[in-house]
């Protein structure tokens, strides 16, 4: 197997570090992330508090470590939700065509017409603001674009002769879809899924920022970023470090996603 590209290695390293930090955060943090300390309010980064403290004197590093779990989990679960349902809908719609496709896509396009964040806001108002509500709401908001991409890929694939060849061999439609169509859709799915992971973390931040995310005092990168806003002049690190975490994660995901797409595609092998 060819080695991952330089970009892929960087992306992989960033994402691995993220997972390690999130995992450590489950068992150990330098300070209790919930412990209030009025004496250490808005302390600048120092030897004691590496990344400083927030307005209640809570350690920012500890909170970031714990917040990583929530952010990663929400991003990951949202993407899984959207990939699973989006791919399913796209495959059915693209393969069935005809009236089934018409109805599914009409519904899909109606959902697409809403900005994702607005749709999520509306759904959150119904389901209530908690982790599962966010995953569900963002998942539903992202499913339509995944469905569209997959449907497009399926529509062009099903006209190719190797799909007909599969039919002539006597393979069932389900087998043909799973063996021949789905694997050939993987490239667009991977690309979209990696960028979705980024959007999901951002949207979670945005929702938390609006007060509709994971409720305080539980930390997420988004609500930390939001909480840092009033203190941007006295304590810039409150917003800077969560922002940096989000940016680095997005960078890592994108680099890794591109590398994965190239690696998963046999046509990219043996070139160069």
């Amino acid at each position, binding site marked *: 197997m060819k080695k991952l590209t330089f970009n892929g290695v960087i992306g992989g390293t960033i994402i691995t570090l993220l997972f390690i930090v999130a995992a450590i955060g489950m068992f150990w943090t330098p300070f209790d992330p919930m412990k209030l300390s009025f004496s250490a309010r808005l302390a600048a980064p120092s030897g004691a508090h590496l990344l400083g403290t927030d307005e209640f004197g809570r350690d920012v590093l500890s909170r970031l470590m714990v917040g990583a779990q929530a952010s990663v989990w929400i991003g990951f679960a949202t993407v899984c939700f959207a990939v699973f349902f989006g791919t399913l809908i796209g495959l059915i719609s693209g393969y069935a065509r005809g009236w089934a496709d018409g109805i599914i896509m009409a519904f899909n396009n109606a959902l697409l017409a809403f900005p994702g964040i607005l749709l999520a806001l509306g759904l959150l108002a119904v389901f209530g603001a908690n982790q599962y509500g966010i995953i569900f709401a963002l998942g539903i908001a992202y499913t339509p674009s995944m469905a569209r991409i997959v449907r497009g890929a399926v529509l062009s694939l099903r006209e190719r002769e190797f799909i007909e*060849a*599969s*039919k002539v*061999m*006597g393979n069932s439609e389900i087998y043909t879809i799973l063996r021949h169509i789905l694997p050939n859709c993987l490239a667009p799915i991977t690309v979209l899924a990696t960028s979705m992971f980024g959007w999901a973390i951002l949207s979670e931040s945005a929702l938390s920022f609006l007060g509709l995310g994971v409720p305080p005092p539980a930390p997420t990168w988004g609500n930390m970023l939001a909480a840092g806003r009033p203190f941007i002049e006295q304590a810039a690190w409150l917003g800077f470090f969560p922002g940096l975490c989000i940016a680095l994660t997005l960078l890592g995901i994108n680099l890794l996603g591109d590398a994965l797409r190239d690696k998963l595609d046999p*046509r990219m092998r043996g070139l160069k």
Partner: protein
Amino acid sequence: MSDQNALLSVRGLTLEVIHNGGAVVKDVSFDVSPGEIVGIVGESGSGKTLATRSIIGLIAPGIRHASGSIVYKGQDTLQAGDRTLRRLRGGEIGVVFQEPMTSLNPSMTIGRQLEEGLILHTKQTAEMRRTNILHMLTRVGLKDPAGALTAYPHEFSGGMRQRIMLASVMLLKPALLIADEPTTALDAVVQRDVMELMVELTKEQGTAVLLISHDLPMVARYTHRFVVMERGVVVEQGTTEEILSRPKHPYTRKLLSSLPFRGDVRAIDTNVSPIVSARDIVVDYPGRKSLFKKGAAKRALHGISIDIHPGEVVALVGGSGSGKTTLGRTIAGLVKETSGEVLFQGKRRDNDWFHYRMNCQMVFQDPYSSLDPRMTILSLVEEALRLIPSLTAAEKKQRAAETLEEVGLGEAFAGRYPHQLSGGQRQRVAIARAIARRPKFLIADEPVSALDVTVRAQVLDLFSNLQKRYGFSCLFISHDLGVVEQIADRVIVMQDGRIIEQGDRNAIFDAPKEAYTRKLLSAIPALDLNDSGGVKLKWRLDA
């Protein structure tokens, strides 16, 4: 051959790839005299197109001119500035490209496109331009020239577009016409009409023609002299007569011997019951649906009945739109027949699809699209064995490997992916996949049309060897009568969804009864190989 008399004189032309310096065209020299038709024959990758495009300064990106000269009317076009080149292009040197579908601008009317060149290169008034255009469109055989002026390219068929393209080029009365595979994308019959028209027109205007093609008989028919290229090098050039009768270079001999020659007559027992029968097959394609009404259905097949006997190779020939592919796909079960039925071994196919699928396989036209790009060669062939209940997994693996070996792809290919193979190798994989099950009946839809001449000959050989070994029956669909003459036992000629004529191969080729069959046959020569490796072409005349 002296330079003084030549209209165009290419000397020692070498083009190389910029990033590694590899030569793609090496030391190519040839001349074209005024009014002469010169052919350039070669397979893909021979550099024939690269070499000729550079005559008008069109050098593909990534490639540069390394040495040599191209002198047109005493001027080296490789050294010429953009202004000179612009004057030459179109005005002095016209070009007709291969794809009539893409060489006309789809968003401009025919009238405006034809006028463009006249405005650019002549000082004619609008009135004169219109008269000239109408005259030229009439000349190239358009039925309604005045109407064509305001029509768009998509309103014309491929053959008509190529005529329009020819009209637009010849309007400017160029001294040299570069025709790069001008008829390759067209039907055999249309091909011949367009070529005849091109030769007539250029003769009238005294235009020299550089005819580039992979189709050796076609080039031989219209040229006095031609050049054979292989991998960027001119291997042989001389008069057509000379090269055909006494080829010197081994590659030329190989090209000539790759031409399809008539195969032996085989004894096929037609008294036994047919293995596959189509009975009164009718296929309607639904009309375009609009909001309120359904368009009239288009009938693609008008009640076709055919029988294919065990071990027999039946060729289905006809132009595009004749319904031959539809018939093949209907028998394969890819298109649902509107009425009629298909019998396999005397029983209705629809009653036992599994049995039919196990015994009927198909080879598709385009080896680039018929193999799943994400599967290895071995797993592609193995997949064909997946549904056979009597084989164990190990036996399947072994059978797949053996079959690959049989089509000439050794173990080294097993782990490769389709994109790593050439077109000919891919088609071998497609054939391996089709025969791995040992089917009793095979449908081959233009299996060699997408391949180069020499590769085509090899794949055809492989195909007939396998057919002899396993004795499967075959429905061989092709527009290329040469291939059919080589491989078929019986020929069925179709036109507009109906069978026009059918009979034994020799009967159809030697004594065709219908005018349409004769027209199809007039496009290909009868070939005789002589002792010195040369070929005698005999063109069959229209009745």
